[in-house]
């Protein structure tokens, strides 16, 4: 696969505040790549750099090997789907989609066929003469996608395009976007703060925080092999505890020595240990490697979410077996469920469920959506 876009050592700041801190990233032809991170992590700025709406303070943006730092947006073979769609309210659906073709002076007949083709692809046939203001959110979204794709760009940039849709519609659109990407073979660069969305759609996920790239990898990579506590916590749920590497494939944490599958650390090196909540088995007290007291149980539909106090550290465990609050239980962790990470600046910040509550989580989610 060929590199289509390369970002090289890019730094960008606004009003003295560093937004991107020495970022390097390669984007390959024909892939669905997602920039994932909380609001303020720099993912939208990265997208705008590729679109040409911002220029880097230092570093280079390459498009098919050519430096394009100073190429204005209208000369880049890249189109954007904006967060709030940015449809032109004074034009109808047909004219919105035809806009880029008219700009390029495409012949009339060709415009007609290409617009019709695009509208068919996004299932909006028959809506040609409707005012865009009369469409629902999902329909507007599709017009925006059709408009961005009709010019056959090499790369499509999508800036949280699904954030304003309700849950059900969002799921449908995720699937649809994935299908469109496969059908057209255009490289999609997708920005989101929703990790589930990222996991389900992407070929490659770029996890960003505080203007830096934390990890680049496939969905499985970033989930199963997070590089640091930030990634582990941001993607899915994780219990992250301090541990000490006794030897290759042997780690000690929470007062117990576990077998594991990782190696290559120094002897007695302090590490972060990640255990996913669904990978912990509950057994009767005394029969497990660890034991603790259940402090809360929440029914989630497919499973229960159980918070267990183990020696003062709160673990989250997802189980299909019911346990009562205040029950004393034992816990078993298989070697391949234990993931060892090197200590990083994020160590100790995440992975403890002491202050956890569902409500709290949703509140902070809503906040980050609104402010991006």
């Amino acid at each position: 696969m060929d590199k289509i876009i390369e970002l090289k050592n890019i730094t960008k700041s606004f009003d003295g505040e560093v937004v991107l801190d020495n970022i390097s990233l390669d984007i390959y032809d024909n892939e669905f790549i997602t920039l994932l991170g909380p609001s303020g992590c720099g993912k939208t700025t990265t997208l705008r750099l590729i679109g040409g709406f911002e220029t880097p303070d230092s570093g280079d943006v390459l498009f098919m090997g050519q430096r394009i730092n100073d190429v204005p947006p209208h000369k880049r073979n890249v189109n954007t789907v904006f967060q709030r769609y940015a449809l032109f309210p004074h034009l109808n659906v047909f004219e919105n989609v035809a806009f880029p073709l008219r700009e390029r002076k495409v012949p009339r007949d060709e415009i007609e066929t290409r617009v019709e083709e695009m509208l068919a692809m996004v299932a909006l046939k028959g809506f040609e003469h409707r005012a865009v203001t009369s469409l629902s959110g999902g329909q507007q979204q599709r017009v925006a996608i059709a408009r961005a794709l009709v010019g056959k760009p090499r790369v499509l940039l999508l800036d949280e395009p699904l954030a304003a849709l309700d849950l059900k519609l969002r799921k449908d659109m995720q699937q649809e976007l994935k299908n469109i990407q496969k059908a057209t073979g255009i490289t999609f660069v997708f920005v989101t703060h929703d990790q589930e969305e990222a996991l389900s759609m992407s070929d490659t996920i770029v996890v960003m925080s505080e203007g830096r790239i934390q990890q680049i990898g496939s969905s499985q990579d970033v989930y199963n092999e997070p590089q640091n506590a930030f990634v582990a916590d941001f993607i899915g749920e994780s219990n992250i505890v301090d541990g000490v590497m006794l030897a290759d494939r042997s780690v000690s944490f929470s007062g117990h020595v576990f077998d594991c599958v990782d190696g290559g650390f120094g002897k007695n090196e302090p590490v972060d240990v990640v255990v996913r909540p669904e990978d912990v088995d509950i057994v009767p007290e005394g029969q497990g490697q660890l034991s603790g007291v259940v402090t809360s149980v929440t029914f989630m539909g497919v499973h229960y979410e159980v918070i267990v106090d183990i020696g003062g550290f709160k673990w989250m465990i997802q189980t299909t077996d019911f346990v009562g609050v205040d029950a004393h239980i034992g816990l078993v962790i298989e070697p391949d469920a234990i993931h060892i990470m090197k200590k990083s600046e994020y160590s100790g910040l995440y992975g403890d469920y002491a202050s956890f509550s569902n409500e709290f989580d949703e509140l902070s989610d809503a906040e980050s959506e609104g402010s991006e």
Partner: protein
Amino acid sequence: MKKASKIFTALMFLFLFAPLVILLVFSFNEARSLSVFSGFSLKWYRELFRDTETLKAVRNTLVLAVCAAGVSTVMGTAAAVGIHRMRSKYLRSALDMVTNIPMINPDIITGISMMLMFVFASRLLGLANSLSFITLLIAHITFCLPYVILQVLPKLRQMDASLPEAAMDLGCTPWGAFWKVELPEIMPAIVTGLIMAFTLSLDDFVISYFTTGTGFQTLPIRIYNMTKKTVTPDMYALATIIFFVILALLLLSNLTDSEDSQKLRAARRAKRAASGRPPMDPRRRRILYACGGSLAVIAVVAAVVFAVTETDNKPQVLNVYNWGEYISDGSEGSMDVVKEFAAWYEEEYGRPVQVNYETFASNEDMYAKLSKNAISYDVIIPSDYMIARMIDEDMLLPLDFDNIPNYQYVDEDFRGLYYDPEDMYSVPYAYGIVGVIYNANVVDEADTGGWDLMWNEKYAGQVLQFNNSRDAFGTAMYRAGIDVNTTDRSQWDLALESLLEQRRSGVVRSYVMDEVYNMMESGEGAIAAYYAGDYFTMLDAQAEGVDLRFYYPERTNFYIDAMCIPSCCQNKELAEIFINYMLSKEPAIANAEYTYYASPNRLVYEDPDYIEEMGEEAMAILYPDWGDFAEKYNTYAYRNLDNDLLDYINSLWETLKIN
């Protein structure tokens, strides 16, 4: 409670719209009077379209409004876009505030400061005329600008900031993105701004008054200057037309703005569903309708006005500055003196001439404009005392009487008068004498003859006294035989006593200026002192049951208005030719017949046709036998008093009004 609020609402609407209804009704009145409706007629509308000076003023106003609205809309939109794109928040809000200041600034301050700036700038550049159409236009653009910005800026802020980015993303240059996406998006606000600027410019008086130059009089200024006589009813007709034009514009601009109107939207949706065909984008259509409609309204009005007045761009220019309604202007079948002069001149001299005829409302107004050197006129027609003052201040040029042979027809009585003792600077145009007007159905013939009638307690509540100090004191001083130009303050105190007595005795109904016409015509007042010429105006409009008559007391005020050439004159010979023309038979008679004032010109008052036209009675009143006119005039006419004395008289006047 419900009933009360209904009544209140009704009262409010009455309060708001009664003046407009009255204006509308009286624009269709057969007669001139405001007190009697004597039948439906389109007479005043016809008159309006014959009044070339007024139509020219309308045309000027429209040209100005279109130019000012156009330029300020373009500039204002550009400024709004500029302010909107500023990165610094502080600079942006500071600019926002600064552009708002002219809106809250009183017009009078804007007007005066602009006039000073223009005069200053032209001195700096060494220009002769500092005020012109251009300065007026600049002033109008200046005060319209903030309103346009105020309309456009919020619309820009409302707009999704990613719209222009999306356009660029899809292949537009930044300039193209502005034209194709941003501009259509803010167009409703631009149209509203345009219409606002147009209406603001259309009805501005104060700022225009200070900043306009020669050759360009707007409609509001012309109407204001008509107050020498009363405002003629064709102005009601004009005001009615303007009201409906503005109303149409307002409705159109509301149409562009009613985006949030749910009703409209629902109606549109229903219509779309019913017709089954894909209509044009409704927003776009509404904007188009509004733009098109506004332009159509403006175009129709402009076309009508331009069709009636003809444009003439001629090299010779003569600027005449006269009282309002003080020249025969072609209305009611009379001669259009200004137009005829231009035609006569071209025939006589083989060169075209453009006459800019403008009017003022008082000697003091005229003096203020001329003394600022802000504008230049070639011929002015001030009153006697003002001529004396202007000669004193070197503001008039001596006339070359070789160019004014018709001066021979001016009666010998009008030579060597106090204001121009050597007859060097002025040629008398018209004169008037104050007499007493009374309603013969109320007043006993035996009580008439002197000033005592105005003090006669038999007619309690029937006397209308002047509402200005000089004229009111005049009546008391003539009555008592005191010199009206005395500098002896005790004499003025005596006159005050007399006026106080008049007031306390209850004979005075009210102190009036222009209201005198309506009050006398309707019979509301029975006795008033006023000029003979004005008596005829009232006579024409008197209501049934009113029988107005007139006499001169023995001692009374005279005034003479005379043609002069101010020192700022640009074409003295042309000015003298104009003065000479005004003295020739036809125009002189036309003017005398039009104004109803007495003419000092023998060609007029000895003309049998004129005498027949005026009637014996009117001739007797207008041209009474005074014996030695010059002596009477020099003895009794008001002269300029020094400022200290005027202040003193005004303080006495205050005492009277407070009591």
